[in-house]
């Protein structure tokens, strides 16, 4: 329910959520929540609807695609208010006193330029390049000019990790974190950090929209979320995409000059990306299903634990988590560890436990492949040749290592049954980026 009119600025909601005292405001705009012609189509998520499936009794329709975020139907209107940008123009909102390197500085200036000239831009920076810090200058410029800013990511973990960093850097500016599992009530604030799904609730709200990790599921190849992004941004807003592994769709937009691009091939501490070591093990997937692991893997795990070296252990499927866990327990390895997967009810707590060094290692699926930093960890990937791990995913996984300046290198071990295209492509991409970094 809406409590104050400011909660409607730049947002689009079902008229059902509107209390009766706000229903007759002069600023309030309305449009149909479901377009009936020419084709049945949801006005919020843009999905084309099947008449039979979307039908309610009495000739009404509803959208079954975005129903998880309150239902859109022909019984109610979609209400919205134009974004008024009611923010004080603060000149030095930035309370971050870190230093950017020369290369980061160039990119940060580029970001300011993108925001000023309202461009669409792709910033291709390697994992651990300090992307968040490079945004600060641009966000600072936005705040000084009273712009509304959103940082969205398809991954909830990325948003949760971004929020405290942005809040710390802009202490005097209201920042809000929105995702499906948060219980924080919505409040009108200048900086919004949210999952890309939450953007569906906004309409022409943001002057500046930053999308972190654009190439990742569920954003890439999801027309609903692309529609939501285009609705959430103002018609002449600036759009900045961030990623370490752009997909073909983005690169083709660059080639067609619809998107400008800049590269940052080196990490903020100036060290090269750690290259993966490939270890071939026969019958690895069979061993996982039998809940027993090869001696070499167990020995490596035991060695890392005795050295007090923390690490992430990636497995391809959720069902492998329990198998690998019991295999490690059977091998009498004494350690604090846990498993985590996307639908895990304690997912957020477990990731926090790993970050707070309460766990020695964590067994995970691809959900922790990107956007999360655990300082000084190593990475082990079981069945790196599995179809689940795309080349981009492997690059990202390798990118979890050596992110802090205290320990700029580390082990990246890919255990596979055979050499396959994705693993080779990952190796090639990392080598290319390192070569590009050498030339600088």
């Amino acid at each position, binding site marked *: 329910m809406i409590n104050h009119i400011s909660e409607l600025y730049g947002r689009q909601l079902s008229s059902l959520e509107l209390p009766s005292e706000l229903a007759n405001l002069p600023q309030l705009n309305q449009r149909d929540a479901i377009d009936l012609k020419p084709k049945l189509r949801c006005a919020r998520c843009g999905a084309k609807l099947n008449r039979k499936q979307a039908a*309610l009794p009495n000739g009404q329709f509803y959208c*079954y695609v975005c129903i*998880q975020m309150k239902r859109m*139907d022909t019984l109610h209107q979609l209400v919205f208010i134009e974004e008024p940008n009611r923010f004080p123009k603060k000149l030095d909102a930035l309370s971050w006193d870190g230093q950017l390197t020369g290369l980061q500085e160039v990119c940060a200036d580029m970001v300011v330029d993108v925001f000023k000239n309202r461009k669409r831009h792709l910033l291709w920076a390697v994992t651990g390049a300090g992307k968040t810090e490079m945004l600060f200058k641009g966000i600072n410029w936005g705040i000084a000019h009273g712009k509304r800013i959103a940082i969205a990511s398809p991954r909830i973990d990325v948003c949760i990790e971004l929020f405290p960093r942005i809040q710390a850097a802009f202490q005097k500016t209201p920042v809000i974190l929105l995702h499906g599992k948060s219980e924080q009530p919505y409040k009108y604030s200048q900086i919004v950090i949210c999952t890309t799904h939450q953007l569906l609730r906004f309409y022409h709200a943001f002057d500046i929209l930053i999308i972190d990790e654009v190439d990742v599921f569920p954003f890439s190849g999801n027309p609903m979320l692309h529609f939501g992004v285009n609705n959430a941004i103002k018609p002449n807003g600036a759009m900045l995409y961030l990623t370490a592994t752009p997909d073909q769709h983005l690169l083709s937009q660059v080639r067609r000059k619809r998107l400008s691009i800049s590269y940052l091939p080196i990490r903020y501490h100036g060290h090269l990306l750690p290259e993966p070591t490939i270890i071939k093990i026969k019958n690895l997937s069979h061993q996982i299903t039998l809940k027993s692991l090869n001696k070499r893997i167990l020995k490596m795990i035991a060695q890392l634990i005795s050295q007090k070296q923390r690490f992430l252990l990636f497995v391809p499927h959720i069902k492998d988590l329990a198998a690998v866990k019991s295999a490690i327990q059977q091998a009498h390895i004494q350690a604090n560890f846990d498993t985590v997967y996307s639908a895990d009810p304690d997912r957020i707590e477990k990731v926090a436990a790993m970050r707070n060094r309460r766990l020695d290692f964590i067994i995970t699926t691809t959900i922790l492949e990107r956007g999360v930093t655990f300082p000084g960890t190593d990475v082990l990937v079981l069945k790196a040749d599995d179809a689940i791990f795309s080349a981009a995913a492997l690059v990202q996984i390798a990118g979890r290592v050596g992110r802090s300046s205290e320990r700029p290198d580390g082990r990246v071990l890919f255990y596979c049954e055979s050499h396959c295209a994705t693993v080779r492509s990952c190796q090639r991409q990392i080598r290319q980026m390192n070569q590009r970094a050498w030339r600088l």
Partner: protein
Amino acid sequence: MKECLLCQVPMRAEVSFDDIILFTRVEPMLICQDCQSAFEKLTGQATCRQCGRRLTVVMENPCYDCQRWQHQISFNFRNVGLYEYNAAMKDYMKRYKFLGDYRLRWLFAKQLGQFALKTKRLLVPIPVTADTMAVRGFNQVTGLLERCHYIEVLRAAQLTKNRRQSEKNRVDRLRLSQPFELVKEKAHLIAGKKVALIDDVYTTGTTIRCAATLLYQAGAASVIGITLAR
């Protein structure tokens, strides 16, 4: 490739060899095996002869709650539940009723319809208030009875519900005053007939007993209840 309506996992329809040579009609799958197995059927189980709940070893038949009802109400009421009201069913109800995903009626419409028709009784659905109808756009019970003939002889007495049934505790719910009234023009249709009341969930049994009282007043010969969940 279709997706499971509940968990969105892609599904592949599996047609067995028997189906092919016997020309069995293959129904399209709506939900995946995992989601399907989370619902627990009550048919064929030992259940309370009055409210239809699953009986455990220590429970008497009729169960304790129904023994209390016998002191409060003049007629004996029998209810049959098709499924146990477990976590999966609660989640289903949440999505079907409160989120309003009307497609989900297909999950149980056929089964509930077949079961109701087998009783050879007149079917009377429990109504929703006008307010719920305006917000939700459908009556969850008539949605489940899509393929059957039913008579809407009851209607909600009030325009709005003060609180949702599911928000009240047991004591509040048992104290409920008559929430329904008869539709005068249709009341003659059930006089002297055997009637089955249809509802989505039986929790304390107050709602359905209130409705049954009214139907007996209208002259129904006998009234039983059929609910999707118990």
